[in-house]
């Protein structure tokens, strides 16, 4: 759930509760105020009425007049009584002939003394119907809820569109951010302090990460460069040593072992250097390459070598024109071919197929000892051969990632297949 939805939900819930509580509260308070007003005017009426009657006390037949008055008047009743009641207010329900319904009335009953006789004076006044009041208040509050909700929703929507725009922009950039791509996060200045803070922090963080990452990459490349010269010195000393005329067989063997080790170091270093160069995007020039003829050229050099192990190379290549960096493509093909030949058993065969934009290289051989996922990791070796650096397929993977080619591996029917979709 989005942040704004959460806050909106709380706001809506709060206003709903407030409105619901306000219905009975306002009902009671309005009723109280109304009753008070009505009671005041009732008491005023009673008072006026009494004063009026008092001014007629000289009449002899006042008793009869009062009886008539009681009969005629609707709102004022006066009857002889024995009880002594002082200002009793109450609400009664009576029939309203004009409205043809039962209506609530407020009435004041009080005993008065007229010419020595005790009378019960009842003054009545129509008051607001409870149902009407509830209806009125309810509808007002309902309208309020509707207005509040739509208002909040609209406000929320425009807020999320305007106010949160920089936030979502930064978020999307962060989602798309990849450390190894050559882009930094560009943030815009906003009017919100928190967003500016966030943007600044993110920029700082990503810039720092990128710097560390680049330093790391450069370090590998520089380290590999620096190793080349000592390796060259080592090899040159071996070449000199070999010329000694007095070498015994044991010494000669040791020299050769040293040379093989030097060769291995050099190859390892070369492949590491290649990996970091691809990482550091040093192969960016592109050109048009006809893949099938390039594959044929590379394979023609490999065939005599493969024949030594009685490995036959069969091809089915359709022309395919791609635009890419030639060095990378040559590396990709060479590494895949080498891998296939190296892992083919004696008298086996390698099948290279280029069709519909996909290059498939199949070689016969037993199932993998390692897990398939680990195959493309650096320094994961299947063969025990000293000649394998464990970097060949890592380079293949890196090139495919860099050029956005799809690389797949499958094992079926005692043969391994690598496919690259260009």
């Amino acid at each position, binding site marked *: 759930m989005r942040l704004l939805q959460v806050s909106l939900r709380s706001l809506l819930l709060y206003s709903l509760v407030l409105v619901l509580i306000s219905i009975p509260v306002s009902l009671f308070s309005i009723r109280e105020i109304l009753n008070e007003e009505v009671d005041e005017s009732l008491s005023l009426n009673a008072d006026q009425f009494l004063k009026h009657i008092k001014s007629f006390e000289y009449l002899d037949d006042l008793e009869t007049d009062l009886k008539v008055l009681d009969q005629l008047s609707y709102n004022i009743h006066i009857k002889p009584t024995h009880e002594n009641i002082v200002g009793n207010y109450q609400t009664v329900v009576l029939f309203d002939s004009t409205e043809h319904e039962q209506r609530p009335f407020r009435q004041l009953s009080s005993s008065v003394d007229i010419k020595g006789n005790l009378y019960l004076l009842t003054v009545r006044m129509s008051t607001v119907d409870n149902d009407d009041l509830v209806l009125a208040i309810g509808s007002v509050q309902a309208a309020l809820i509707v207005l509040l909700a739509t208002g909040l929703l609209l406000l929320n929507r425009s807020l999320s569109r305007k106010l949160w725009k920089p936030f979502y922009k930064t978020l999307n950039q962060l989602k798309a951010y990849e450390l190894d791509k050559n882009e930094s996060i560009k943030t815009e200045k906003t009017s919100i302090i928190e967003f500016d803070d966030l943007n600044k922090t993110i920029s700082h963080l990503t810039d720092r990460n990128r710097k560390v990452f680049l330093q790391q990459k450069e370090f590998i490349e520089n380290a590999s460069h620096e190793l080349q010269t000592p390796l*060259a*010195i080592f090899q040159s000393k071996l070449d000199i040593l*070999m010329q000694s005329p007095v070498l015994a067989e044991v010494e*000669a*063997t040791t020299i050769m072992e040293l040379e093989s080790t030097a060769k291995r170091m050099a190859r390892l270093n070369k492949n590491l250097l290649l990996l970091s160069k691809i990482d550091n995007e040093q192969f960016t020039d592109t050109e048009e390459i006809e893949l099938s003829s390039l594959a044929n050229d590379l394979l023609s050099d490999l065939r005599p070598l493969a024949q*030594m*192990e009685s490995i036959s190379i069969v091809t089915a290549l359709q022309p395919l024109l791609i635009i890419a960096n030639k060095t990378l493509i040559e590396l990709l093909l*060479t590494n895949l071919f*080498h891998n296939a030949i*190296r892992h083919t058993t004696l008298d086996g065969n390698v099948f290279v197929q280029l069709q519909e934009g996909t290059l498939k290289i199949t070689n016969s051989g037993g199932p993998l000892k390692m897990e398939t996922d680990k195959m493309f990791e650096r320094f994961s070796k299947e063969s025990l051969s000293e000649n394998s650096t464990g970097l060949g397929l890592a380079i293949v993977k890196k090139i495919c990632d860099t050029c956005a080619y799809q690389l797949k591996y499958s094992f079926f029917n005692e043969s391994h297949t690598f496919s690259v979709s260009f």
Partner: protein
Amino acid sequence: MKILIVEDEKQLVKSMAQFLRQESYVCEIAYTEREAKEKILLFDYDCILLDISLPDGNGLKILEQLRQKNKSDGVIIITAKNSLDDRVKGLNLGADDYLSKPFYLPELSARVSAVIRRKRFDGNNKIVLREITIDLLGKIAIVNNKVLELTRKEYDLLIFLMANKNRVVSKNAIAEHLSGDNAELFDKFDFIYSHMKNLKKKLSEAGGQDYIKTIYGLGYKFSI
């Protein structure tokens, strides 16, 4: 024949000079860009081995100076960087060849002699060693006036061995010279052995002496 080695790694320079002097080249050494520029102004060299990264500058500057002075010294760039940029720049500035570290000294020696031959004899040249004549232009080997039917690899192998005559050349160096990166494929050197066997057979069939000696455990030597 005079060679100038421009390289700041003293140990490497020592080995290179020692190896090349056996081939009776005269080797001079410059450890810095300044020294190299001075020497180039004063003398002409048949071949200059040029390291690109020098402590006081870039080797490509030396190459520029050479071309400005219209000097025709052969140049082989030697670098640890192996970057395509440097290679293209170097070759555009007129370098004749490019060798990246680490390298085998026999490979260096073969490249040096190839550059010198190209410069000296303008391509129209032959290598003659007793009864063996190599016509570099026609890419054929002739023994006792008979043209040998050599494959491309056998021809390359013969030139490589002759450029390193009287020196032991290891199987690794031969493998890399013949197959480049593909030499990585196998631990064994069967393919060298079969090329070598065929070459020796063809040489002797044409009446050539058996110059190619197998040095047990190490490699081969063209002894003359």
